[in-house]
């Protein structure tokens, strides 16, 4: 590789080196820059999304403007995805380096502009993670808006009886934090509220929150008189439906805020007609107000922490365990409410069928985890330890109870976990490897038969217990998609939010100024949630403390001499950062407002605009480099930095294999891809061209990728008119999570490329030869 690189024009020094990202590696770069007076640096290694900042820093320290650095992604997008075709992989790597060098030759130094950061934070979700993050930020002195969709903060932790491995009372340790939130001068608590709109960018978000009416005013003293008289009842969500609540209720004793709320879904008073006024009559403080309407609260925030938590798997999706059919089959969450002294049974573990204390109890693990049958491939992390904790709770109260735990593997990975596991075994809890194939109820006794295979003893078992507890897993919130869309985030295939980097940026979102805490990012226990929350708080605190954010120098460069003031660019700019000065017949760019997508440059028909660091010349140089040899065998791919390119990286990280014919040119946004780039690729004989970006609506630059679509469609039309096979130009929407989607698209295109004849290539060359001018 190094040898090949050295042979390239402009290259004066090429070195082979392991771990260039390490300190030594960086030192090497610095010294070489100084020693050889280098004015450009190219590193061929991993993805720029991972280490570009590292190397840019090194260059800067060596006195080289960081915009004079370029990277060739020969790992995620080459070696890792062509594991079984070393030769082709090597050829591709050469191309990638050649492209990088070609671009590097044309790089220009640039200065970054700075934007101020609003010193206020939005925390979405009031579970333990949201609570911790909010308190940390508020204690640091930042104003925090904590938005919770339920009537009270507390989340899932508030519903759990004891925590593992320490066995302390969950609500007892949470309640003080909850009331701290309620009283904190820096925290504005918005419960029963949804985030409905977020505009802006890192440091300058504008947020709209819809506050749903409570129908109970602040005057409520939570005396409870109204509940006494309310004639409408429903199962209480907080108690997992094991206890009732009234239409007017408080979710639970320690709720914050403690004010009551009316469930209009079941209240008798509809259409503004008060049919039943018992609560109104019972309330001395006249705190009940059926005229309350939803209100929209608007505010600005510099950073956002997403802590929306996780849903609990509904085991009726796994019918073989009879949940929802057999009353004595309960979930681990229902267990928590049963064993909780404040719960519906006053802390007595009773089986619903006859309210008797069970003698034989079975726990079934991995219900909703690690199963392809129900498409929950991941491990939910908390279930093993939760079951162990629960089994010990039973032993504590009813030592005689026989307890069987059916598991796949016991994962006691955390601090103090193994001790707890051992204790359970010592207490006589029986662990049987191998989940039951099914659970069958005895109609008369309502006892439950478990049938399955003990995979250690290679023996079938068939046993009857009084009660079965399904150790249910965690899954992404149903409304994750909404938050994803509002904040332009990406999610893993499991559906949990994806961090900017799994190792080095575990709480940052790819989108600047947004961070994750708790189960929103992946299933985790209370301790990890709190840890991550504090981390997220710290990360967003860093941004706000600095008070300003530097915007990458990716803004447009204008050539007024070419501009004839047509105003097309002003129309496509998603940020209205370009205005048309009618008097002076030219355009003006507001750099601070510019998001850096470059779609204006792609739109300009007169070459009066280009994007700094992604200039036409640079991109054309890359195209030319790709098409120098065997163009007719290659696919030129333009991928946007945030989705498609990240998706390709993800394919690499997951070692998804695809044909080596593709050469990826990175642009910030697919909206940067000017028709002339595509035309030039064909004019130089490329077999096919791929333009790939974020899904419509998920564009990192609001809506710039709608321009991409328009332009590609125009090209298709042209190709059809000219009798070309429009299949040769492909458009792909792939999110950062959709590595497989990217890979399969390449496979599909490869099949098509093999059918492309030399004649086809020549026709295309003719049609587009005009595109050869310039560059």
């Amino acid at each position, binding site marked *: 590789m190094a040898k090949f690189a050295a042979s390239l024009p402009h290259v004066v020094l090429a070195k082979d080196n392991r771990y260039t990202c390490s300190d030594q590696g960086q030192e090497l770069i610095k010294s070489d820059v100084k020693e050889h007076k280098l004015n450009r640096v190219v590193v061929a290694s991993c993805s720029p999304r991972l280490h570009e900042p590292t190397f840019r820093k090194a260059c800067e320290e060596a006195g080289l403007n960081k915009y004079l650095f370029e990277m060739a992604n020969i790992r995620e997008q080459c070696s890792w995805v062509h594991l079984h075709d070393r030769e082709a992989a090597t050829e591709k790597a050469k191309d990638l380096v050649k492209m990088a060098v070609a671009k590097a030759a044309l790089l220009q130094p640039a200065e970054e502009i700075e934007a101020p950061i609003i010193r206020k934070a939005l925390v979405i979700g009031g579970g333990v993670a949201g609570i911790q993050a909010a308190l940390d930020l508020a204690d640091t002195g930042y104003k925090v808006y904590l938005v919770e969709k339920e009537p009270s903060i507390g989340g899932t932790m508030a519903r759990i009886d004891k925590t593992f491995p320490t066995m302390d009372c969950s609500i007892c340790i949470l309640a003080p934090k909850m009331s701290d939130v309620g009283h904190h001068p820096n925290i504005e608590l918005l419960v029963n509220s949804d985030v409905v709109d977020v505009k802006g960018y890192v440091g300058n978000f504008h947020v709209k929150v819809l506050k749903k009416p409570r129908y109970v005013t602040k005057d409520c003293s939570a005396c409870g008189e109204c509940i006494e008289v309310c004639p409408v009842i429903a199962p209480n969500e907080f108690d997992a439906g094991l206890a009732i609540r009234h239409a007017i209720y408080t979710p639970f004793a320690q709720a914050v805020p403690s004010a009551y709320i009316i469930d209009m879904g079941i209240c008798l008073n509809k*259409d*503004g*007609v*008060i*049919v039943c*006024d018992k609560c*109104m009559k019972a309330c001395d403080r006249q705190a009940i107000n*059926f*005229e309350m309407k939803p209100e929209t609260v608007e505010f600005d925030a510099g950073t956002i922490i997403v802590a929306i938590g996780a849903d609990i798997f509904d085991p009726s999706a796994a019918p073989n365990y009879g949940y929802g059919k057999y009353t004595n089959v309960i979930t681990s969450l229902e267990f928590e409410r049963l064993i909780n002294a404040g719960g519906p049974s006053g802390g007595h573990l009773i089986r619903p069928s006859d309210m008797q204390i069970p003698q034989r109890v079975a726990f079934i693990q991995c219900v909703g985890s690690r199963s392809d049958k129900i498409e929950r491939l991941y491990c939910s992390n908390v279930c093993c330890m939760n079951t162990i904790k629960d089994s010990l709770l039973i032993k504590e109260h009813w030592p005689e109870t026989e307890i069987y735990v059916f598991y796949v593997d016991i994962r006691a990975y955390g601090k103090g976990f193994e001790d707890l596991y051992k204790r359970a075994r010592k207490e006589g809890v029986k662990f049987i490897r191998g989940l039951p194939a099914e659970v069958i109820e005895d109609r008369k006794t309502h006892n439950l038969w478990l049938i399955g295979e003990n995979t250690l003893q290679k023996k079938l078992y068939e046993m009857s217990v009084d009660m079965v507890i399904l150790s249910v897993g965690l899954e992404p919130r149903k409304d994750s998609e909404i938050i994803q869309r509002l904040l332009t985030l990406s999610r893993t295939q499991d559906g949990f939010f994806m961090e900017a980097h799994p190792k080095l940026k575990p709480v940052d979102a790819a989108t600047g100024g947004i961070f994750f805490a708790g189960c929103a990012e992946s299933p985790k226990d209370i301790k990890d949630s709190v840890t991550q929350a504090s981390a997220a708080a710290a990360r967003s605190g860093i941004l706000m403390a600095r008070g300003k954010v530097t915007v990458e120098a990716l803004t447009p460069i204008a050539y007024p001499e070419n501009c004839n003031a047509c105003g097309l660019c002003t129309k496509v700019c998603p940020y209205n950062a370009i205005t048309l000065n009618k008097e002076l017949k030219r355009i003006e760019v507001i750099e601070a407002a510019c998001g850096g997508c470059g779609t204006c440059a792609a739109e300009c028909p007169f070459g009066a605009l280009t994007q700094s660091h992604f200039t036409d010349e640079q991109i054309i140089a890359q195209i030319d480099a790709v098409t120098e040899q065997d163009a007719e065998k290659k696919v030129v791919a333009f991928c946007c930095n945030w989705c498609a390119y990240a998706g390709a990286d993800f394919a690499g990280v997951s070692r998804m294999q695809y044909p080596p014919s593709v050469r990826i040119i990175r642009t910030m946004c697919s909206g940067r891809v000017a028709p002339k780039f595509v035309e030039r690729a064909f004019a130089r004989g490329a077999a096919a061209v791929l333009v790939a970006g974020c899904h419509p609506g998920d564009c990192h630059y609001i809506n710039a990728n709608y321009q991409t679509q328009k332009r590609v469609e125009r090209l298709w039309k042209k190709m059809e008119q000219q009798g070309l096979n429009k299949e040769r130009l492909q458009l792909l929407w792939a999110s950062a999570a959709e590595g497989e989607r990217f890979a399969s698209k390449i496979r599909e295109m490869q099949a098509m490329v093999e059918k492309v004849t030399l004649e086809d290539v020549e026709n295309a060359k003719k049609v587009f030869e005009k595109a050869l001018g310039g560059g």
Partner: protein
Amino acid sequence: MSTELVHPLSKYLRAAMMPHIWCSGCGNGIILNCFVQAIDELQMDLNRLVVVSGIGCIGRVAGYANTNSFHTTHGRPIAFATGVKLANPELEVVIISGDGDLFAIGGNHFIHAARRNLGVKVICANNFNYGMTGGQQGPTTPLEAFTTTTPYGNIEHPFNLVHLASASGATYVARWTTLHVRRLTQSIRKLLQKEGFSFIEVVSPCPEIYGRQNKMRTGLEMMEWFRRASVVEHFSDPAKAEITREKIVVGEFVDTEKPSYEKLLHEKIAQVGKEAGKWGEQGAS
């Protein structure tokens, strides 16, 4: 068995006058029901209460309420009540009458009592027409509505009563329909506790007379219209609260305080009396 049944509110009604003369589905009975309910909730001293009514179906209400009551000539209940209230300010004087009585023939008395802020309370049953005389057009008949005197559709613009009341200076103005019985009862309680001139418009079904001429043959159809069209909006602009087929804005429009006419009058009397020297035993107050 049913004959011995005693309705909890029957003590507020004159047994001899029951059952009332109103048609099936007529809202007047509901208004009476809410009124006595409010009195019951407030535990009002019936001896201090005077119910005054005018002419029209609802005019009979004075005879039904088991309290001091007077059934005046057409349009004059407010004028009569003025005499009662000034002569004995201790009395709580409530005028319950119809839209024609209060706003056509009696309109002048209404606006002037409101202007003076006389401390009487007015509850108007608005049934959009003259029911007692067989369904003629009145001051609240909607445009295009059919009545026995607008056989081709009404071309007169109706009064927006809550707007009229607030513009005239009423210190409490509310509108409800007979479907909003709870709020109406609460509203009447409030009305009875105000010092100044207070007004509640009750949009009330008149299926037999008005409804059948306007494609709403039963009380239920009219009540369903109220349910469909009503929007509860407190303290919205009364000027924008015209009643239409599509929308009936209900709620409180005005709730302010200013000294009542009788209060100011008796203050003056006290002041003048002091200057003139003590008067004799025949003093009014």
